[in-house]
């Protein structure tokens, strides 16, 4: 074969008018390892979903652009079709049957079979499995990965690293495999396993299999890839050879954006006025599935806006959830020098902290209740506001309505009135209700998680401006967690980067992009590890 194995030309994808891919061009030669790097939300997964013909793409209006596979046009419309053409994909989440053996998982639905008496009557489906051949095939696939493991072991109970290898072995076992997509394969692996994996990726490439390799880990990219494509906000910012690239350069490209931070300039003067931290976090561990925190130490100064950044899954979201008692946490939290018991929402609320959850519809709102009820109920139950005493404590409808009206006006919540159900509001207005709810508690410290997630572009700015205004005018200290670095950099005074559940470092918002990229990719942690 002479031409490229895969060519994706001018791929564009929109979700409801929101462009998530803007003209991506990628071409992969046979035997080439092509790395795709980018932040969360840069469009990597969408691109792979298009390549793999996932239903989510077609259910949302399809894509524009042209895909050619082995020189012929290939509008892939379903994962089955993609598999038939010889495209294999290893997903970030494992798709294995835990109760089955490694061999069964590798050969699932592609089992070699032998005819028997029943199959001659009832047809193919009743044929006997050819177990010895299945074992041979499975063993061979595992060996190609340099993995010495009994193929008859159950998958349940294997270390995660091995599960990753089993996934890859399954794809390798498909004799037609020509292009393998690995979606962040090293994310769950230890350094050693990751190295083995990279070696086997190289070996596959030498056998002529093309590999699309998606990752955050920049050092890996340099060591394994033949070509590197960097995506950012759905745009293809660069495609280069590893020889032209350095970790710093990639990091800068990945984070990109020259950000104008207008806001924090006026504050530098009073930054040294207060030296006593308002909130100090010591050795915080939070067991939040998918966002585990493994020992964060952090101090929050009064009056500041502190940002918590980092890649998804590294635990930045776990910090606020742990402090507010949503997930089991351990460590030491002190507010104004007073220690706060953990794992108790009420203790956290009573110490002057409030939380706007990232799960707006799940945790943040009573969707079936009115705007008014949403705003007042938390303050009523935790602080006894909006009540009057008549033998028993009754709701004080008058003060509640007055407060709600004021909040609607102050925060500019667009609704038909305090009685409207929050379910009927737009995302931006729902978020405002969440913020109003938190403000009703009159907090000293406000935790805000992913405040602009799922909100349209115009409303995003409004929410951010609102937070700044609260901070400046009412003196509320804000700890904002966000996956969007540009957002953090536009309003925060300091930004703490969380990597693998620990504090990687604290940066000022106008630090270089390269520094941000490196920290988010955990360069420091890797260096520390290498040194020790």
């Amino acid at each position, binding site marked *: 074969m002479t031409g490229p194995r895969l060519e994706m030309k001018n791929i564009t994808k929109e979700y409801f008018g929101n462009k998530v891919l803007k003209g991506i061009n990628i071409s992969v030669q046979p035997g080439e390892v092509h790395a795709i790097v980018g932040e969360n939300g840069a469009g990597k997964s969408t691109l792979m979903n298009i390549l793999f013909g996932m239903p989510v793409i077609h259910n949302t209006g399809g894509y524009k652009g042209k895909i050619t596979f082995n020189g012929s046009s290939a509008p892939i419309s379903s994962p089955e079709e993609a598999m038939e053409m010889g495209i294999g994909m290893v997903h970030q989440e494992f798709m294995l049957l835990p109760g089955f053996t490694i061999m069964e998982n590798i050969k699932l639905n592609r089992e070699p079979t032998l005819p028997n008496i029943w199959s001659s009557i009832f047809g193919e489906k009743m044929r006997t499995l050819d177990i010895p051949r299945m074992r041979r095939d499975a063993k061979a696939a595992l060996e190609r990965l340099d993995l010495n493991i009994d193929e008859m072991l159950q998958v349940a109970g294997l270390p995660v690293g091995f599960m990753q290898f089993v996934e890859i072995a399954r794809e390798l076992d498909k004799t037609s495999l020509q292009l393998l997509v690995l979606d962040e394969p090293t994310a769950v692996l230890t350094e050693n396993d990751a190295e083995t994996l990279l070696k086997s990726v190289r070996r596959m490439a030498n056998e002529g299999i093309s590999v699309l390799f998606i990752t955050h880990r920049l050092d890996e990219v340099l060591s394994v890839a033949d070509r590197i494509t960097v995506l950012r906000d759905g745009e293809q910012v660069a495609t280069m050879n590893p020889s032209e690239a350095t970790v710093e350069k990639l990091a800068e490209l990945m984070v990109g954006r020259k950000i104008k931070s207008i806001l924090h300039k006026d504050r530098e003067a009073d930054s040294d006025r207060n030296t006593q931290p308002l909130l100090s976090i010591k050795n915080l561990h939070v067991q939040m599935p998918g966002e585990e925190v493994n020992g964060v130490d952090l101090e929050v100064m009064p009056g500041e806006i502190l940002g918590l950044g980092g890649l998804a899954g590294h635990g930045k979201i776990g910090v606020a959830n742990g402090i507010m008692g*949503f997930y089991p946490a351990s460590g030491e939290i002190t507010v104004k020098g007073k220690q706060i018991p953990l794992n108790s929402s009420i203790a956290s609320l009573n110490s002057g902290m409030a*939380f706007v959850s990232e799960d707006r519809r799940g945790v943040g709102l009573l969707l079936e209740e009115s705007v008014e009820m949403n705003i007042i109920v938390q303050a009523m139950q935790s602080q006894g506001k909006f009540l009057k005493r008549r033998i028993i404590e009754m*709701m004080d409808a008058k003060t509640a309505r007055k407060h709600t009206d004021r909040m609607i006006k102050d925060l500019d919540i667009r609704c038909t009135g305090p009685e409207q159900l929050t379910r009927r509001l737009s995302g931006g207005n729902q978020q405002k209700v969440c913020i109003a709810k938190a403000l009703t508690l009159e907090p000293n410290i406000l935790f805000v998680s992913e405040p602009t997630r799922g909100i349209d572009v115009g409303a995003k700015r409004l929410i951010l401006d609102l937070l700044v205004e609260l901070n400046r005018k009412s003196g509320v200290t804000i700890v904002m967690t966000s996956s969007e670095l540009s957002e953090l950099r536009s309003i925060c005074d300091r930004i703490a980067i969380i990597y693998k559940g620990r504090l990687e470092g604290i940066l000022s918002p106008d630090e270089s992009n390269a520094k941000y990229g490196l920290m988010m990719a955990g360069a420091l942690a890797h260096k520390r590890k290498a040194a020790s």
Partner: protein
Amino acid sequence: MPEECLISQKPTLKERILDFYRDFGVARLIIFAFLIFLLASAFALKLPMEQILSSVLTRFGMNGILVLAMIPSIQSGTGPNFALPLGITCGIVAITLSIELNMAGFSGFFFSVGVAALLGAATGFLYGFLLNRVKGQELTVGTYFGFSIVSLMCIFWFLAPYKSPEMIWPYGGSGLRVTIALQDRIGKVLDNFLAFDFFGVTVPTGLLLFFALFCTGLWLFSRTRTGIALSTVGTNPKFAESSGLNVNRYRIIGSTISQALGAVGIVVYAQSFGFIQLYMAPLFMAFFAVASILIGGASLKKSTVTHAVIGTFLFQSILVVSMPVANIVVADNIADVIRIIISNGIILYALTRKETGGDLS
């Protein structure tokens, strides 16, 4: 991102009609149409309308509190109280105690109500702990718990050392009868209190007042700090936790109030009915109460006093009116079949609508 950019202005008339239609629900429209059809046929068949209307009022009042019992249970997030037979048996125990103690009239009635409420609350409290262990399966567990309790109580009725000759089997001298008459005890005490005739329709004033009292009480309760906490827990347990509320505690409170209301409800029911029925009789009583509140517009997650009032009225009216109509038009006993079809059908309908009472677009 799919973002619903709805509503920033007042809804138009068309939207309002659509909203009303959605809020009201297809099921209720059908039931309502059916009721009107029945009333029209009753009128055409020249049935005694005064008697029918009197009967509607009485049955509305006597079933009302049993239906109200669904509200705290739904509000606290445990769904309609299918384990209502638990409260019902408590109420029956209270009535038998009042007879055993040779009480009659209002003293007997209020004694029964008081004891029923206490017993109902106590068992409801304990039942709440069970509910907290089976989150997500309250409906199934509740149904079977109700069935089990009825069977278990069969042993109690048979073995309890009651002595009153009005209640025990005439032969053998031990064990309670299946049906116990109340006419010399608490029978009709509420119905006859301040009752008057209005164009031939008998209005059971005392009964309706007593029901209204409970409606008001429950409505006031829903405005208290505890009442609001209760419905917060039911609407969104995660939100409630984030407000520092103890979700399990409020679920227990919901169960306690619900069973207490169920116990009081059966006392009111029995005084109007004139009998108490023991053994297997309470087995399906929960279903009619559940069906009533659902017809009234409640969902598995949200209910108000209005839903209970409307639902009880619709459900009981259909029963009362359909009985004589069906007897003439089709055959004897068809009314009971209709009752079962309607009640089970409406429960099925509500269970298949996962989210709300039918207005989640």
